[in-house]
């Protein structure tokens, strides 16, 4: 077993070696521009791009003509939200999203607010899921677009996009779904779901970084205003020379995801549940987010009375991420966990474990043992744990905030 071991598959995944092998020839001998119409270099590149488009469409049961290439999920989300908001601005200027969305959505919404749109940021319930009654109540006659994520990046909960889609479709509201964390993790059927726009990323699904896609529904047709101009690639929706090797990469990654998902999910779920059983043997630990409406590879836990960043430091032999954003310049605890109503202490002491294709049972057992030892050590150091042991309710203590 090689240390540090990687349990941060929701941050990014290694590129599957089979994907790399498919990509490399498109950097060497097949270097043509897919937009070149006058020679075989261009023709073969164009064919590779279209084959990949079919693979991406196949994973989500869409028509290949509904797939637009982008540089990644962030760009897809920007194109979807700004594109729809700008196109439908005469219909209304009200947008709805959820507080636990990824920053790619929240920051794009903030930008639209600066442009004069009005945005509602909905709360979630304690389990991380959207309250559908609250959602219905937030809709207005001038609501033009709703954005929600299928799988949350921090806590892995699965939003009910089927129902949200029904509600939006009835009212003619454009519905965008951020599926960056969802591909290969659960079946997605866009022939059934009433979703108008869906964002994808390659690098969360064993493909390369720097490429993604946006699904744009044809029936009923959804219109977008382009955000990138020059050359009219991708039916004018996203100009710029297509990176053939990257697109071949996402195509192969999504093809493998479709073929291997049923067995892969079950194997990973078994490992995740083994991790969960091991870690819940520690006292005063809490799972963040609903455990049933959740993807198989995510476990987000708070270790009470232990501070998150010191915990991450204690477990430096495993690559995980702190739900708390302490490692960045910001000292704020995770906004996602705060949205679930978690106390600051619990939000500060959370760790996200995300498992993947190359995770082994041995790695899981190592992680359980390491956490059991390190949490015990840090609690020996913790005045909060000492007070808890003495039976003091920390909520009754007058703290000097600083």
């Amino acid at each position, binding site marked *: 077993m090689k240390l540090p071991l990687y349990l941060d598959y929701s941050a990014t995944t290694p590129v599957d070696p089979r994907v790399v092998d498919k990509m490399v020839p498109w950097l060497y001998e097949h270097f043509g521009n897919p937009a070149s119409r006058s020679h075989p270099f261009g023709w073969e590149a164009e064919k590779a791009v279209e084959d990949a488009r079919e693979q991406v469409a196949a994973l989500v049961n869409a028509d290949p003509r509904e797939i637009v290439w982008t540089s990644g999920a962030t760009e897809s989300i920007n194109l979807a939200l700004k594109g729809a908001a700008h196109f439908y601005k005469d219909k209304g200027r009200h947008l709805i999203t959820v507080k636990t969305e990824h920053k790619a959505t929240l920051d794009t919404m903030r930008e639209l607010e600066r442009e004069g749109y009005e945005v509602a940021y909905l709360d979630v319930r304690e389990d991380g899921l959207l309250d559908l009654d609250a959602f219905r109540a937030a809709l207005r006659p001038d609501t033009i677009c709703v954005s929600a994520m299928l799988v949350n990046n921090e806590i892995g909960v699965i939003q009910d996009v089927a129902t949200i889609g029904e509600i939006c479709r009835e009212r003619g509201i454009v519905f965008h779904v951020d599926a960056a964390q969802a591909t290969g993790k659960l079946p997605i059927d866009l022939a059934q779901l009433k979703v108008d726009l869906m964002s994808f990323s390659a690098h969360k699904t064993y493909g390369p970084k720097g490429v993604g896609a946006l699904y744009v529904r044809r029936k009923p047709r959804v219109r977008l205003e382009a955000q990138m101009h020059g050359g009219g690639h991708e039916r004018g929706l996203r100009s710029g020379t297509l990176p053939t090797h990257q697109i071949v990469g996402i195509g192969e990654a999504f093809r493998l995801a479709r073929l291997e998902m049923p067995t892969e999910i079950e194997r990973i779920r078994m490992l995740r549940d083994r991790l969960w059983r091991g870690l819940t043997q520690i006292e005063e630990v809490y799972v963040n987010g609903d455990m049933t409406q959740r993807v198989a590879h995510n476990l987000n836990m708070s270790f009470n009375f232990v501070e998150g960043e010191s915990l991450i430091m204690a477990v430096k032999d495993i690559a995980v991420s702190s739900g708390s954003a302490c490692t960045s310049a910001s000292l704020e605890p995770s906004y996602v966990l705060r949205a679930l109503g978690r106390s600051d202490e619990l939000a500060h002491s959370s760790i996200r474990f995300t498992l993947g294709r190359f995770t082994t049972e041995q790695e899981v057992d190592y992680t359980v043992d390491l956490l059991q030892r390190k949490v015990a050590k840090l609690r020996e150091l913790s005045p909060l744990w000492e007070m808890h042991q003495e039976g003091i309710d920390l909520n009754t203590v007058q703290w000097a905030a*600083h």
Partner: protein
Amino acid sequence: MAYSEKVIDHYENPRNVGSFDKGDDSVGTGMVGAPACGDVMKLQIKVGADGTIEDARFKTYGCGSAIASSSLVTEWVKGKSLDDAMNIRNTEIAAELALPPVKIHCSILAEDAIKAAVQDYKAKHGAAVEEKKAA
């Protein structure tokens, strides 16, 4: 975040971890910070009859820099008079541990913890000191 070697050393081998009896007259206890902010430090000093700090203990809930700052000050206060301990500055702690700007608050908290411990000790003995003066 890249930590300095000194932070890592204190974090991995924290000095003087533990607790004294709060009720002991020779002990001063300082507890600063708040769980909501991600740091709570408890620093205790044991003061000898001559007014010198003989021993110190700490427990800290916080990041590696907070643990290292409090571990370091337990070493520094030993052997100092109460007044000298009060003169320890957060800038010295930050410099010794090479704390990055976002972690300066950890050193401030450690300085506050010393002050709170000394004040607690003085509060316990305030009456006694006054009596001596009067006599």
